[in-house]
């Protein structure tokens, strides 16, 4: 009886929490299918906002930029981060403690400050703004996460196999591709996913580093919210949410959340 009461309580709590998390998102999605442009009821089902979205060049361009950036960021950040992680766990590096502390600023500083600092530096150093500048920023923000995630995986298995292969005469590159990489692959995949998510969701740095005409989805959505929007924004948001949820569901098939690996 007591167990039942407590499970009712805990399940009830979780249900309310999930309600809080999903209420605004579901309502927002619902409004994408509503006729009114000022979000007024009664609800009249309509697909007009999705149709209008098809003809909205600016949003498509921004979406394409977001995707390009996220993919590029995933490739670069995962590669650089994995290299660094390997170096930390497989090589003796003098001053590695300092190097690890240096990973903190990108995580532990308000993005607003990092982004404005980049704006000032890129503007005056000739690096300029644009997709390349955003890529610079996104990689910097994702690197620490990649290094930590891959590093955790590297730590969980020893160097025995690699050393055995090396004594059998395999070249370092061969050892890496044939032994190390397959073992750490789940960690690398998780890190890549993190990198993709960080970039695709990144608003603050992109906002300060986007010149006119070159925007990403978050920047475009912010501009719309401040300067004028219609439920087209709901429509594109709905698409983004559904796609990212599908992506995560896909991933959760082999990267179990909360379970042991």
């Amino acid at each position, binding site marked *: 009886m007591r167990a039942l009461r407590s*499970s009712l309580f*805990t399940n009830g709590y*979780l249900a309310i929490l999930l309600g*809080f*998390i999903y*209420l*605004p*998102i579901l*309502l*927002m999605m619902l*409004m994408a299918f509503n006729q009114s442009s000022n979000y007024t009821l009664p609800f009249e089902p309509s697909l007009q906002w999705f149709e209008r979205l098809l003809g909205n060049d600016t949003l498509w361009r921004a979406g394409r930029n977001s995707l390009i950036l996220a993919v590029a960021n995933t490739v670069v950040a995962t590669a*650089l*981060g994995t*290299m*660094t992680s390997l*170096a930390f766990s497989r*090589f*003796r*590096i003098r001053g590695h403690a300092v*190097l690890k502390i*240096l990973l903190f*600023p990108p995580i*532990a*500083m*308000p*993005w*607003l400050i*990092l982004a*404005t*600092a980049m704006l*000032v*530096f890129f503007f*005056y*150093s000739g*690096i300029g703004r644009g997709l390349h500048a955003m890529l*610079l920023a996104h990689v*910097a923000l994702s*690197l620490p996460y990649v290094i930590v995630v891959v590093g955790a995986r590297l730590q969980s298995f020893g160097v025995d196999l690699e050393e055995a292969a090396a004594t059998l005469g395999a070249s370092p590159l061969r050892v890496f591709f044939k032994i190390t990489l397959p073992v750490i692959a789940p960690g690398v995949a998780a890190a890549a996913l993190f990198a993709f*998510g960080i970039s*695709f*969701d990144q*608003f603050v740095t992109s906002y*300060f580093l986007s010149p006119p005409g070159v925007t990403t989805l*978050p920047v475009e*959505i*912010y501009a719309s*919210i401040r300067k004028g929007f219609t439920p087209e*924004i709901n429509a594109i*948001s709905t698409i*983004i*949410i559904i796609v*990212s*949820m599908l*992506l*995560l*569901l896909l991933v*959760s098939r082999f990267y179990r*959340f*909360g*379970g042991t690996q």
Partner: protein
Amino acid sequence: MNRFKRQWAGYGLTAPSYLWLTVTVFLPLLVMFYFSFLSQMPLGKAEPSLTLKQYGLFFQKDFYRFLTWRSIRLGIDVTFFCVLFGYPAALILARSVKGRWREAVLLLIVLPFWSNALIRIFAWTIVLRGNGVVDQAIHVAWPGAPSIGILYSYPAIVIGLVHSFLPYMILTCYISLQAIDGSLIEAGRSLGASHFRIFRRIILPLSLPGLLIGVVLIFIPVTGSFMEPRILGGRDGIMLGTVIEDQFTEVFNWPLGAALSFILLAIVLLICALAYPLLKSRLRLA
């Protein structure tokens, strides 16, 4: 020789990452620090000189200090509610929900966190607006009900930010709660400790690291937030973050924006530094 080679291979592998961070983080911060001492923007005919004027403004004008306090308070409030709602959720997930069910709930909590932060904030404008969707739905069911419109207020900002950052807290707490050895709790129980005592003496201290990481991960970005207050705050939406944003995007006073940024950074670091010895002793206890 081999050792020497290994050393260099290690540097070779780390160099690209740190070079990247130098160009994107360390150099920009240095340059911006320099900027914060400039009298005006070095553009066109302007000849800026070095000055403490920008920092001086912060101390001459009360409202900058007031806004700094507001930003800090926002950080504290949001972190507080995240702990209040997130920690019990993590506890329930780690201790009383099992198997596939637990995984499903965790996934449900993480899912929206992967969609865009802006979209989630935007979603709240639809929910909270007076005469908005929720209000209208209530009025259909109960004509004459009072309006719940709290969009454009401080609570709206807090709600939106808690919604954005709650998953961080649940996840970090969950990870450290889940790692607690069940036999410790069993031992406590067999020795006759009450639920509360077990929580206070075993569960809380052992989960403290996760809780603290969550607190830091939430407190720091929230103090620098500008987008959320701008969209949800209305009349109450002015924060140090929004004033800094204005300096960069609207009034083109980058030196002042830089100085305000560094003041905010210094204060946040100071708070973390002050809290550190306290946390450290707590952590050692754990």
